């Protein structure tokens, strides 16, 4: 990357939350390397039929906006004021009480006043007043109104791609004003001008045409999973043969593709494979609907719908009974709050019923999609898993609630129930940083790119700091979660702020604790290829006695991963 990311101490020292003396309307964002994302590639935007695809650079003065950009923005605003009650009401009723001001992780991590949710919303509200409302038109700045200029658009691009749509502000607002909702709409409007970031636009295009973010073609997707199967064979000692695009399976399994190729997501993916094999689940993967995540959600509701379509379409084509979804944050916000509305009703599916426990998931009787964690919780509750949680004793775990599953779903206890059943050492972070008050990883809503690391590390400061607190107090060394973006983003965040803490998906801890019938000596290594007894020794624990190697069994404990 271009410039060096500042050291943690440099960021910590330079941080102040005092606003400057100038009025915010007189300040401009500085497009400094590390603090913003690159513009979308022309081909990606064109691939989705997006408007005004072009080469442009945020650091240059000329953003090559379309000739009638002002008209487009004004019409775009009007249209959305009409179509979204949320947007209209949120534009009208904020009292600027400031309750939300210090709730945003980007404000905490940057001290930039325009990262206070209220001011982020005012960036657009000021235009609403200055262009559409009489008082604002006449009194201008005094009444918080201003005119639409190119500078405003640049400011929007900077700050609406410096909001992770985490909704933490909304929890504290006396009217529930959700700045995430305002960001969602602001991004739709920026899209009308072809202003999009590459880390969103390119995955969206790949997802649409190929099926998943990385654009893994069907055979490559399958190969990736087969590669994980090899690792499972080596480290766990079981052979698994999952099916792909298989008609007539009972369940279609969809998870974010990040879990198929990126460390530590792959360990979560291996865990799904192990769990389903253990259960003898009649399920299939799909290469067509091979992405649970939905970066369309970060561009426009139409794009979200276009991507989400595949899940129901594929479940219909394959004739499955219901859909099981992997661990992911925004995927589950979309599945929970949008999918059925956009692409339902899913009448071709049945109300999900666990084939193992017989539990009928009444809470999902319309979407017909079940979260792997509630599925697992139900298995544990019914005693269907043989778990030895002491196998995770070398981990002292804390739980990161993902923004989307917490504030856009309310999925708080299911993972905790599972966690308590698979680990002995679990400590919560402080109350103001968990559950509905949880802090974002700083990289959500498509901001987990490589070029904006400083932005991400700043945004992740409150989360990392809470982890540091339990790390110091209880010796926490593992940060568990149920989100693919978290798995990808929290690892570098921890390496930056709290290097002693590792990151894993919840299912990985389940797989670790699972006592597999006929398990072999290979089990002495974990999914990461680490010798479990070495880890235990480090943690001052007694070694585990693993079963003897039988004649067929492979060589245990070979170093696989770094």
């Amino acid at each position, binding site marked *: 990357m271009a410039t060096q990311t500042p050291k943690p101490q440099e960021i910590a*020292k330079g941080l102040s939350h005092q606003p400057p003396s100038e009025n915010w309307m007189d300040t401009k964002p500085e497009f400094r390397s590390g603090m913003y994302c690159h513009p979308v590639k022309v081909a990606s935007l064109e691939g989705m039929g997006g408007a005004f695809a072009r080469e442009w650079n945020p650091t240059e003065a000329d953003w090559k906006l379309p000739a009638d950009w002002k008209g487009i923005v004004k019409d775009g605003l009007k249209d959305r004021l009409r179509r*979204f009650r949320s947007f209209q009401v949120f534009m009208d*009723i904020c009292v600027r009480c400031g309750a939300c001001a210090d709730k945003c992780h980007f404000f905490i991590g940057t001290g930039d006043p325009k990262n206070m949710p*209220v001011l982020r919303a005012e960036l657009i509200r000021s235009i609403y007043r200055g262009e559409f409302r009489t008082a604002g038109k006449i009194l201008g700045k005094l009444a918080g109104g201003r005119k639409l200029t190119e500078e405003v658009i640049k400011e929007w691009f900077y700050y609406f791609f410096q909001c992770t749509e985490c909704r933490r502000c909304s929890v504290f607002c*006396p009217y529930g004003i*959700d700045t995430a909702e305002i960001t969602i709409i602001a991004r739709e409007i920026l899209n009308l001008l072809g202003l999009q970031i590459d880390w969103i636009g390119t995955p969206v295009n790949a997802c649409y045409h190929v099926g998943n973010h990385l654009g893994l073609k069907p055979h490559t997707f399958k190969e990736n999973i087969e590669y994980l199967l090899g690792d499972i064979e080596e480290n766990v000692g079981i052979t698994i043969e999952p099916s792909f695009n298989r008609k007539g399976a009972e369940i279609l399994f969809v998870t974010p593709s990040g879990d198929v190729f990126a460390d530590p997501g792959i360990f979560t993916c291996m865990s799904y494979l192990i769990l389903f094999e253990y259960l003898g689940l009649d399920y299939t993967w799909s290469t067509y609907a091979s992405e649970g995540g939905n970066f369309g959600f970060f561009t426009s509701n139409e794009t979200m719908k276009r991507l989400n379509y595949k899940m129901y379409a594929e479940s219909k084509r394959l004739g499955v009974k219901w859909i099981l979804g992997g661990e992911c944050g925004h995927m589950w916000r979309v599945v929970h709050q949008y999918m059925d*509305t956009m692409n339902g009703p899913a009448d071709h599916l049945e109300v999900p019923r666990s084939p193992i426990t017989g539990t009928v998931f009444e809470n999902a009787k319309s979407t017909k999609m079940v979260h792997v964690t509630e599925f697992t919780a139900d298995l544990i509750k019914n005693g269907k898993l043989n778990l030895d949680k002491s196998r995770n004793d070398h981990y002292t775990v804390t739980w990161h609630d993902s923004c989307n599953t917490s504030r856009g*779903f309310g999925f708080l206890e299911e993972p905790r129930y599972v966690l308590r059943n698979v680990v002995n050492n679990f400590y919560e972070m402080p109350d103001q940083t968990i559950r509905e008050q949880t802090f974002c990883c700083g990289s959500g809503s498509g901001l987990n790119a490589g070029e904006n690391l400083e932005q991400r590390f700043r945004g992740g400061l409150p989360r990392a700091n809470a982890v540091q607190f339990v790390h110091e107090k209880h010796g926490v060394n593992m940060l568990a979660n149920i989100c693919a973006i978290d798995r990808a983003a929290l690892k570098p965040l921890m390496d930056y702020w709290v290097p002693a803490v590792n990151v894993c998906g919840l299912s990985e801890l389940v797989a670790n604790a699972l006592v597999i019938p006929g398990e072999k000596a290979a089990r002495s290594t974990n999914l990461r290829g680490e010798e479990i007894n070495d880890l235990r020794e480090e943690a001052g624990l007694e070694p585990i006695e693993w079963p003897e190697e039988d004649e067929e069994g492979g060589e245990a404990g070979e170093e696989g991963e770094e």
Partner: protein
Amino acid sequence: MSFIFSLVAVTVLVLVPLVGVTVADLRWLFGVVVPYAAVATFLIGVSYRVLKWSNSPVPFRIPTTCGQAKGLPWIKTNKLDNPCSLPAVIGRMFLEVFLFRSLFRNTRMEYHQGPKVRYGSSKWLWLFGLLFHYSFLVVLIRHLRFFTEPVPMWVQIVEHIDTFFEMGLPLPGPDGLYVGLPLLAQSGVILLAAATLLFLRRVVIAQVRYISIAGDWFPLLLIIFIAKTGIIMRYVLKVDVVTVKKLTMSLVALKPELPADPISFMFYIHIFLVSFLFAYFPFSKLMHLGGVWLSPTRNLVNNSREKRHINPWNPEVKFHTYAEYEDDFREQMIEAGIPVEKEA
């Protein structure tokens, strides 16, 4: 800047009726025409905005969930923070509207070098807000005395309770006897105090000062002035309530008539400021009174997996179908042993 502008604006609003009544004798204008116009603007304006909001669609079911959702039957649902049914939503809205539930959650972030980010409890805004709104409500109710004859029982009860507090706070008197401290706990005074505290908060907290615009300073100052003029009338000038009531009752009866006995100019200032507040209301952030009921992040049931929510404008979009996908990758799929619909 926006503060000074607001202060000047409110001052002008005080001077207008002062000059109007004392110099130009426009009592009819300020006593009758302006209040009528203000009430009409208020009613039309508020209805217009509320209708506009309630007619706008709610495309997606997007409650902000602040507690455990309804899930597996053995997991305890937090119904009030994550409502799973209509009664639960009503409960949530009740807490929100009448007890300011969300503000009650408020925390204050403290940043220390290290870095150490800590969060303290911060209930001041909640407390001031609650005091402000409830004392305002009581003041409004007590004013119904001027617009009803006979005065309804419930208004009298509210008055009684309010007056009870007025008398009820004992303080040691000069000769060791306890005397009632008038004023201290009376709704009008609490209103003034709470509005002043909200005002000071806006001045003192740098971040809140930074985000404030005229639309924030102005209504606060206006209400402070209204409370002040009211208190002066009641306790200092002791304006003749009976005469005032003659005027107000004539307004209610739609047979406006200025009473023969003179009413203090302070009354005209008071009623003008109040009229302005009413007329200003629908165009301002004060509409949060209506909006809070309609906020989609609070007033929706969180049951979108259980029951399909309908988007009235669900857009037609282009999809990438499986058939198109297979056409793109058929050969590779066959080679990789992935089943296909059409053989090559």
